[in-house]
């Protein structure tokens, strides 16, 4: 392991690429939310769905999104790594 200097060859390449793509999806969601908190808090106090305001809804949404993306990743990684599919 110590003599492999190419990070791409370490671990399953395709699973890592899928993970990285999903990572950026979440980065956009999370920092988008932080940007709203910082610059447009008025949008977050609006109540587009009637009852619950957008601040609470997007917080719950971020938690749900994290779980959803992680399940997608687990399934996708299993598919690309399964024998017969080839790993690279």
């Amino acid at each position: 392991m110590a003599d492999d200097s190419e990070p791409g060859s370490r671990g399953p390449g395709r699973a890592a690429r899928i993970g990285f793509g999903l990572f950026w999806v979440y980065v956009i969601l999370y920092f988008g939310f932080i940007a709203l908190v910082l610059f447009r808090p008025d949008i977050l106090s609006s109540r587009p769905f009637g009852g619950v305001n957008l601040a609470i809804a997007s917080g719950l949404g971020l938690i749900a999104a994290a779980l959803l993306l992680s399940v997608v990743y687990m399934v996708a990684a299993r598919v690309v790594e399964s024998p017969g599919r080839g790993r690279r």
Partner: protein
Amino acid sequence: MLYESSPVAIAIFASFVLAVIGLSFWLGRKGQSAKGYFAAHGEIHWFINGIAFAGDYLSAASFLGICGMIAFHGFDGFLYSIGFLAGWIVALFVIAEPIKSMGKFTFADALDAKYNSRGIKLSVAISTLVVSIFYLIPQMVGAGDLIMPLLGLPHAVGVILVGVAVTLIVVTAGMVSTTWVQFIKGSLLVFFCGVLTSMILSRGLTVNTGSLEPQTRTVTPDGRVLVDGEPQTRDHDLRPVGTLAALPERYGDATTTGPLGPLEYLSVLEDSRIVTWSGKKSTDASGTHTIYTPTVRAGTDLLKPGGYFKGLTTGKLADKLDFASLMLALFCGTASLPHILIRYYTVKDAAAARKSTVVGIAAIGAFYVLTLFLGLGAMTSGALDPTSTNMAAPLLAKSFSNTLFAAISAIAFTTVLGTVSGLIMAGSGAVAHDLVENVLGIPMNDDEKVRCGKIAAVGLGIVAMALGILFRSFNVSFLVGWAFNIAASANLPSLVMLLFWPRTTKEGIIAAVTVGMLASLTWILLSADTFEKVYGLSRDASPVPFSQPGLVTIPLGFIVLIVVSLLTKAQPQGKPA
């Protein structure tokens, strides 16, 4: 407020702690190998490991701190939850698999796999110890806060009790017993938060016309405590606070809503009016006075950002940066926490590591959703202690029944046990495996290595107890924010660059870890918050523009790594630094 200790609470608590310690002795009854002690033989089932992730991660800060912050300041406590959970995305998608495939026992193993450099092992072992100790402080403070109402014992006794129990757990069976303690704690915590949330929802919201008279707590120069000018006793104490002043108009004259659905609960609360209390300190010749005054606020104001992070509404740039910095540190910090990373060595392969992270995210996410309801339930329970935000969750349970209070307090206490044992385990590995064996180059056989780890665990336990007593007046979430800042600044740049930038050199890693750790630590020690709460100086004397260092020190770590790597050519490896 003064609390009465209940025999039921003591019984539940004592049986709990004894059961956990008994389990540890049972698991540790056989002699152990180093792989067993430091990594639970790499044979933990992924589901157990996933729940143990939750048990490891959901610290006293999550349970006590966030609940308290939501109960006193509204939505902003939930921002911590969002950030804490988001960090798992970094852990799962970027860090988990390489950590698993490169390391053996500790995080330093993984960073050093390519270079075999003593310098890397030394700097990473030190950063592991610094982060673990910073993370230990809030856990121990939380333990002390809990013991007062639960057993009627002083803060210091709680801290020492946790310290001794955890040291026993770790020393008896290392990572094996640590994992099981965390698994039990994780499941109990999520389960009981679920029970408490369903009780909150079925109780609904009720108008409570508590007195709105301000209350004063005075500590005289000779150390006596006065409430509204008279000595504090059980019968003459601060009134509990946190009430609902009015329901939405659509309820007419009704004073209670009856059972509510989860979303309905939130939307009714938004249209209600809520009484929150805040304290203001002043000092004169007769002592230090804290005056607690009520404010009646619209639910919509409490359920939007800005209640705790005042900077979000003032428009001052430094305050906004402080907040952005914290949220960045929470995002990057989880994946850099040594006690979380070592849990990847307890499962057998990358697929198991992935599955256990998903289980962890599910359990932790569910817990944070429940915490929102617990915090809001506490906010309107009429049971809050105006002097202690950390007591919100147990006092909420008390508003239902004393038995539930005892159960929740015992669980909160185990919460501390689970996380502290993980931290001490991480520190023990850093000392025995990284520092003594690899840096000092003292050869050890398996038994000696385990013994060395155990001695380190005892030492860390003692340090943790001392710090827990020293830092007792802090909100525990706040302190955890610091630990995340240091972890993210010291460890994340190296982890990420090692994986994605082939030109990273060992000098680059050593420099980035050292600079990231020292810069964030120095920044924290110079921050306005530390000036005010630790040194007792004026906030304005602080030389740094905002208190949370991450926004500056995380990028600084990356820059240092890149510059130093470019200046030092990649050498044929194998040479010690």
